[in-house]
Each structure stands twice: as C-alpha cells, then as structure tokens.
C-alpha cells in the first residue's frame, strides 16, 4: 500500500485544496457556496403520502438542489428491499415478544431510510450504522442471522466489518461517525474514491462526537455523508428538547458543508438525494449532511412504553405517511409493480422472515473460552490464567 507522498507543507494563508474542489463542484449548479450549503427551504418530497408523483416545481427543490427520479428497475429493487425490511422488523419484534431474542430496536416506519442508505452506496464504500439500522445492514448484503447475533445475546456483533464494509452497530451515540471519518481519511490518503455513509438519529446530534466528526470531515475535506434519521424522539425526549436549530440539516452550514433535508418516508426522494450526495462526495466536494424526516412508529425497544410520552393521534398521523404503502401505491400506479412482482417480493420477504424464525428459534452453543480469545491479538499470561480458572470451574460443574 502506498500513500501519495505529498511533501506539501500547509501554508497557513492558503485555503486547503478541497475548498477549491468544493467551490468548483458548486459552480456547476450556478449558485453561491452559501446557497449550496443551506438546505432547501422544505424537505425534498417526490412522492406524496398518497403515492402520487409530486409536480417538479412542488418537490421542494431550489436552484442547485434538483434531483432526478431513479429509473424503474432501481425503484422496483428498492421496493423489494423495503418489503423485506418491514417483514424483518415485524418478525424480529414478534420474536422479542416470544422471548426468543432479548431486544430489538425496530426501524418500523423508517425502512425507506434504511433501504436508501444501503442502496446509495457502491460495494467499495463503507456504512457506519447504529443499533436501529439492522435493516440497512441486511440491505447492504450482510447475512441477517449474523446481524441478529448481538440482539440474541451470543456476542456483541456477528459480522466481519471488512466483508461488506459495514462498521459494527454502535450504541454509544455518534461515536461511530468518527470511525467513518477515519475510514474515509485513510482511503483519501491512499487516493481511493471510497465514500462513507455514517448514520445517527436526531437525539444523537446533541452529542459532542457529532460535532467533532462533522468538523473533522469538513476540515480534512473527506467524502462522508452524515445521514441523520430524524425520527422525532430520542427514547422519550422530543426533538424540540434536543435542538433549537431551524432544522438539523442547517447544522451543516456551521461546519462548511452542505445540508439537505428530505422526506424520510419517501423512498424515491431518499434515493435521489442520497445518490446525489454520494456522487458529490466521490467527486471531491467534501462531506454532506442529509437529514431525513421520519418517525419511529414503535417504542424505542420492547423495554420502552411510548404511551407515556406521545399521543396515539400523533402515531396515527404518521401511519398515513407510511413509506411502504406510499411506494406500493406509487409503483403500482406507474405500472412498475405488477401483481406477479408483488407476489414474488412478498415470497422473498417471507423467506427471509423464515430464516430469522428458524435461526433464532434454534439454541446456539456459546464457547466460554471465547471470552478470552479476542481481548488482544495474542494471549497474555494473565488472561491465560483466568481462562484456565474458568475451564476448571466448568469441568468441576460438569463432574457434579
């Protein structure tokens, strides 16, 4: 591996090269850098909650913020992932109720965000997800049973991050954004065109690492898309108690990056906005922040009681904006989704659910000696002694 041997010593009076790249990429939109950075006045919406294409001049786009509609094959493939995602969420929630898995933070209602995040990236790109992004990880191609490892409680994670370029699901909020920044930075130093999509929620934007990650990405001009799923609640605390900003997307401007906001239940708009962001980042214009307006239809986890902090009427209101119904209506209306496609897709989703049901209903052996195996890359005498002690305890127990 070689790093381009830049002997360049930064000149404090010169703007860094990526600032020039940003200016150049903005120039093609015919707008100012400030207009490019500021989010459009309203979240981009291309398909209405009723499943009807929104007229181009009402999509919320402004000069420099215009988005093409993805082609039909792509939309059909995305719809398939959407159906699977919903089925995965509901299957896993059922398995929690049946006591088969300990916990599952469902992204029910946010599946359009999940699917678009995965489909916007190329194979060589990286995704850095949170605990609620299981569907996105599966849509990226990670084996569903491997994804469920942490929720069934047999290990903290079950997939190799290098295999599909997906970071480990992070529970300490926004800490993983910085890992995404680092992956992008390493790639940039080697001259690779890797784009990183780093995910977090609305509440997480209050964390210090959110600020540090966005600032580092912007200062180093790194190709990172910060994808914020604003689902309105951080467990019980509503967005108004997290931020007084005009929108979360507006935070981007303060770091010197572009902010976008999009209807998070409109898969067509999400795909379009995220693909444009990925393209811009890959071309060297630096990081972008994309805020998706969505809603967490279920409680935070099975341990939470959402009736304590929000009204049923609010949930019912968002039910009307459901991403799956919207996409089905739209694609059926367009003649893209035919009955036979719908049947095939439902069968596929059912098959994935069956894999989860069977897999999670099967007891797996855990190996207590594995507790000591991955603490360091090679064993230490100290841990060898503790491992021997546990082995001895277990063999005594077995002899009883």
């Amino acid at each position, binding site marked *: 591996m070689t790093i381009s041997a830049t002997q360049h010593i930064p000149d404090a009076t010169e703007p860094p090269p990526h600032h020039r790249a940003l200016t150049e990429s903005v120039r093609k939109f015919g707008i100012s850098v400030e207009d490019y950075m500021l989010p459009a006045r309203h979240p981009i919406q291309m398909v209405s909650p009723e499943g009807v294409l929104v007229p181009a001049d009402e999509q919320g786009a402004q000069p420099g913020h215009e988005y093409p509609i993805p082609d039909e094959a792509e939309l059909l493939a995305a719809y398939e992932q959407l159906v699977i995602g919903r089925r995965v969420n509901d299957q896993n929630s059922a398995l929690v109720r049946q006591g088969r898995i300990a916990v599952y933070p469902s992204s029910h209602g946010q599946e359009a965000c999940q699917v678009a995040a995965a489909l916007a990236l190329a194979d060589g790109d990286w995704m850095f997800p949170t605990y609620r992004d299981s569907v996105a990880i599966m849509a990226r191609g990670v084996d569903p049973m491997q994804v469920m490892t942490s929720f069934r409680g047999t290990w903290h994670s079950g997939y190799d991050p290098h295999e599909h370029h997906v970071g480990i699901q992070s529970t300490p909020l926004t800490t993983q954004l910085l890992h995404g920044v680092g992956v992008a930075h390493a790639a940039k130093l080697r001259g690779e065109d890797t784009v990183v999509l780093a995910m977090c929620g609305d509440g997480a934007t209050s964390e210090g690492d959110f600020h540090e990650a966005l600032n*580092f990405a912007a200062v180093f001009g790194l190709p990172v898309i910060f994808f914020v799923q604003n689902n309105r609640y951080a467990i019980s605390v509503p967005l108004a108690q997290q931020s007084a900003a005009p929108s979360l997307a507006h935070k981007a401007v303060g770091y010197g990056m572009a902010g976008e906001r999009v209807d998070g239940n409109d898969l067509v708009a999400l795909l379009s906005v995220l693909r444009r962001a990925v393209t811009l980042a890959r071309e060297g214009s630096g990081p972008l922040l994309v805020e998706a307006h969505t809603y967490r239809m279920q409680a935070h986890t099975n341990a939470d009681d959402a009736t304590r902090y929000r009204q049923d009427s609010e949930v019912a209101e968002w039910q009307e904006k459901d991403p799956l119904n919207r996409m089905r209506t739209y694609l059926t209306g367009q003649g893209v989704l035919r009955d036979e496609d719908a049947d095939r897709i439902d069968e596929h989703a059912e098959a994935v659910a069956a894999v989860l049901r069977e897999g999670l209903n099967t007891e797996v052996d855990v190996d207590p000696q594995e507790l000591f195996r991955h603490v360091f890359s090679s064993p230490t005498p100290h841990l060898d002694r503790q491992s021997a002690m546990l082995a001895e305890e277990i063999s005594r127990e077995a002899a009883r």
Partner: protein
Amino acid sequence: MSRTLTTSSATTSATDGDVSSATARAAEQAASTQEVQSLTLAKALNTAMVDAMSADDTVIVFGEDVGMLGGVFRITDGLMRRFGSTRCFDTPLAESGIIGMAVGMAMNGMRPVVEMQFDAFAYPAFEQIASHVAKMHNRTRGAVTLPMVIRIPYAGGIGGVEHHCDSSEAYYAHTAGLKVYTPATVADGYRMLREAIDSDDPVIFMEPKKLYWSKDAVDLEGLRQEHTERVAAGSSTEGRAGVARSGTDATLIAYGPSVPTALAAAAVAAEEGRSLEVIDVRSIVPFDDETVAASVRRTGRAVVIAEAHGFASVASEIVARIQESCFHQLAAPVRRVTGFDIPYPAPKLEHYYLPGVDRILDAVDDLQWEDQS
C-alpha cells in the same frame, strides 16, 4: 506475541527478564566501540517514530500541534517536514475526534500514532478509548484489529499548571483490551515505542514528561539492530519488567517517572548498608508477575512506588498481586509510596505530593526489620 526475549547479541541476558541491565551492558559494550551517544528521552521517542515511519508508510502521526510546531514537547519535531503533511499533520483541537478518527484509520489499513497533548486533556477521548479502542477487537470476534498508539505525556514534576500533571495510567490499565506501556529510560523510550507501533493491539503509551530531557548514553544503532532482530524472531519485550538495579534486602517496584526516584533511594540506602533491588515495570499491561514475584520472594520485602493517587491504583494492583503470589515469603506487609489522594497540587506545592527519596526510605525502614533473623 512471545513472552520470550530473543537472545540478540545486544540483549543477551543471564538474568531472565532483566531488560534494563541488559541494555546497560549493551551500552557499555557499545561505548567501547565508540557507538554510544548521549540522547534525551525526547530524541529517542522522536527517532523511534522516524524509524517506524521510514520502515512502514502506513504509520502516520497526528494530533494537536504535532505538525509545524513538532508538538508542545517537540517529540514529533521534524516529522511533517520529513514525511510530508499526509503522514504527519495537525488536527482540529478535539481529543475524541483524534482518537475516533484514528480508530477508523486503523480499521482501514493505517497504523496511527496519535498524541494527546497532556494527560488530563485526554479525558474528552475517554469514551472512544474505553468503548471502542479497547473493545473493537473483542466486539468483532477478532475480525478487526486496531494497531494504534496513543501517546500521552503524563505525571508531574515539571511545575506544570493544573490539568497538566495527572497520572492517568490507572484509567487505562483498568480498561480491558488496552496495553499500557511506560518507559523510564532513554533506551526503553526507543525500544518500547517501536514495539508499541509494531503491536497489532492498541497501546496507551504513557511518557513521563519530567524525563523527556533526561539524557543517557545509548547505542542507537544497537537498538535498531535489536529491534530488527526481534521483529524477525516475532518477539518483543512487551510484558517484561526490567531489573534496574540488583539488590538483596528489599524490592522497590516502580514505573515511569518513579524509576529514577527509586534508583536514587536505592543509592542512598546502599550508603546506609541496605541493598535494595529496583524493578522497572515497563509494561503495566500486560504485567510481568514473574519478574516481580521472583524478586520479592528472594528479598522478602517490597515497596511499590508511583506518583498516582494510591487509592484504587496500579500500585494497589501490584501490591495485591504480590500478596497473592508471595505471601509466605514476605517478612513484612507490602508498602506503597504514592501520591496523596488529593487533586494534583499547584506547582509550589507539588514537591509535598510527589513520592521522594525520603518517603521511600521511610517506607523501607518500616518493613519490620526487627523481625529479620
């Protein structure tokens, strides 16, 4: 990583684990062939980074003020000029950002060596260190390794203002998954930093800042040769304590900034007719129980010396381990000489806080010598 020291010509040691005296002998040998040179710890650390960066272009150095300035202690002096701004660069002033970004870079093929400007300024990065740096290998079942070094100038004795003198090693030593090294000699500064950079595990590299400008005669070429041979043999000195001074009556166990103090105490005790052995812990994690226990079993008495607060400290851990493994050979309870359990004092008061020769000798005097048969 093997626990066996390779037997290179420079480090062949009759006493197993006697790393420091082996170095001293190597230095003596070198002196006779005019290869020895007077070097500061700062320069040894700097040279270790230069050599590591020359040998492997995935080694990159970043942090606050490490570029043009060369670090507030000048440990990264000249690295940016020599290797360019892609290999050594300044970051925004945010420690969590530095560590978090290093995690991602280490995941993606780099070996970052990052600098925390001062001990107490590393605290904003603690979540990244405790929740990710320490655990990533374990969480991913070994799929991800994080070969990264976090260099932290630590401890007092330089008249620093508040938040510039903390002994923070216990926080890291207590966190499973981190290796914690702390050199006390110029030769170990070079040797251990090279090994930390070579390690596939994350290493917290605690640099005793009051020793940065201490000089020693070292054979740099000999150290380079030793490193090359160890790498070829797949071994290192990690997890090996050194016997900094041999003795028979009691064992002083110290690390980092306290090693010279312990040696000074042993020198005074020798004048008074008491022979004290001084063990330099070198690597707090993994800890060398063998060398420490062998010494204490032989002398029957032990004092553990550290600048950090004594309560729930590395010193406490060492005492506990000695009690567990040497109880029947002990002639007296193991004593600790540590900093008081108070926030680190202002410059004019720090000499009251720091473990000094007298306090160490008082503790030695207290080791129930009247019971000696």
